[in-house]
């Protein structure tokens, strides 16, 4: 390393910024790679479930398929339909892509490795940050629907607005019981709290509500009404092509990965390795094992998301709304009251 460079790094602000930049680069590269291979996994698993083979020609087991796909989408001619509202039409896919990238910043994907905390920004209000950013995801879809100036995308956009608003409420309420237990909104504290018992065993109802809402928030079957191929052609992305379509596609899968990461962090101990005292292996190996544990759990949930999509049929719209407002919302409120009562009784005892 040249002396100029190491002198520059010695300044506290610069070192901090460099550390953050490296983490951001690594996380984005890993996320994008995961998105590409989640798409491949989806196609292969769906084929398995439907007794087909799926894409298996490009590379061994079709492993190069995502690369071929992305090159195809990148090299396509950029077409703007004549009837769209140009500015918002082009902006919508980027707005859809931003929230999953922003939420990822606060999710701890490991404890520490070589003295670095394995989280980009460990905010005091981490969970609040996640919910506030996740609530912006709806704009990409609504804007796409409106700016396309076409009826099926419009219907898809409207459905999405109603659905996301409805399911954000039980989702937010379900994690309140988690924070009553942990006593902090910081995600690293939530993970540290789960060193002994994972939160799914202490707050199973919250987990269930969160899981169902997560499916609705990511527009995945059985709640994929904003897209609903059979009724809406393709929903909000009907008028989109090339890389703009690919961005919506990426956003959907990135959302799914972030939702899985959030479920793992909140209810399944994050980077905690169960049954093994990893500290005994020394700091480097313990850190690496933590990261590995996080990714194993994450992959399990991604497969679960895919499995559900190819197993369950779609809800009808009124069923979707009824489930959200008449079942999940009261359950979530009940869960908060029950948790608060239990904690109060425990404090008194």
């Amino acid at each position, binding site marked *: 390393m040249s002396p100029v460079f190491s002198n520059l790094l010695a300044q506290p602000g610069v070192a901090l910024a460099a550390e953050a930049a490296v983490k951001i680069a690594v996380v984005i590269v890993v996320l994008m790679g995961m998105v590409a291979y989640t798409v491949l996994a989806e196609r292969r698993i769906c084929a398995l479930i439907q007794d087909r083979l799926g894409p298996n020609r490009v590379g061994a087991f079709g492993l190069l398929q995502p690369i071929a796909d992305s090159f195809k989408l990148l090299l396509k001619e950029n077409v703007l339909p004549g009837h769209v509202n140009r500015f918002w039409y082009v902006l919508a896919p980027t707005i859809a892509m931003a929230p999953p990238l922003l939420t990822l910043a606060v999710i701890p994907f490991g404890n520490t490795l070589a003295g670095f905390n394995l989280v980009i920004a460990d*905010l005091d209000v981490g969970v*609040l940050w996640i919910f506030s950013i996740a*609530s*912006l995801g709806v*704009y990409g879809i609504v804007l796409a629907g409106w700016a396309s100036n076409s009826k099926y995308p419009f219907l898809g956009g409207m459905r999405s*607005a109603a659905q996301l608003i409805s399911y*954000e409420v039980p989702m937010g309420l379900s994690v309140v019981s988690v924070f009553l237990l942990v006593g*902090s909104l910081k995600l690293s504290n939530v993970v540290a709290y789960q060193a002994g018992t994972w939160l799914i065993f202490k707050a199973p109802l919250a987990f269930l509500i969160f899981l169902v809402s997560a499916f609705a928030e990511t527009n995945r079957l059985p709640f994929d009404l904003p897209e609903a191929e059979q009724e809406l052609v393709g929903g909000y992305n009907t008028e989109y092509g090339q890389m703009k379509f690919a961005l919506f596609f990426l956003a959907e899968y990135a959302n799914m990965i972030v939702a899985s990461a959030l479920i793992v962090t909140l209810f399944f101990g994050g980077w905690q390795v169960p049954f093994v005292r990893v500290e005994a292996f020394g700091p480097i190996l313990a850190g690496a094992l933590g990261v590995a544990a996080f990714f194993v759990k994450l992959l399990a949930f991604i497969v679960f998301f895919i499995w559900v999509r190819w197993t369950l049929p779609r809800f009808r719209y009124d069923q979707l709304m009824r489930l959200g407002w008449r079942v999940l919302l009261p359950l979530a409120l009940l869960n908060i009251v029950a948790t608060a009562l239990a904690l109060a009784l425990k404090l008194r005892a």
Partner: protein
Amino acid sequence: MRTAFILITFWTLASGLLAISRRNMIHCALALISFFAGIAALLFTLSADFLGAVQLLIYVGAISVLILFALLVTHDASRLGDRGAPFSRGKWSGWMLSALVFVVLGFGLHRVAVPPPPDPAPALPVAEIGRLLVTRHAVPFLAMALLLTAALVGSALVAIEESSEHARKE
């Protein structure tokens, strides 16, 4: 931080101006969203993380979606504005009143000696905000809760009456 603050301030002001001056209602709503986001960004630069996140969650993520939703389901809302002028006939009295309010507020603020904030400003921990809400500010907190509950019950009531009227007509 100061540069960011100034840039965001201009962004917020420009969005606010757009929100009241565009003829297309949807564009107004989108500018309003950008205005709310600007306020949230200002709160973040002032190291009020909690308030910033809440601002994003409630104003940008929820209220604005409802505004946009209402505009989109309202028939032809986006074209209604094309014919009407964005400013009403009483605009001069409006400008003068707002200028007067600005002068009075500015004068008042100028007279008050504000102690310089400690550097860096201490961030209020979330737990402390929660504690204040249920102790010192318990009464306004409960009053807000009551108000929101009343609004919720009221809107449910309106919705129920409308749907039963529909049923009778059919």
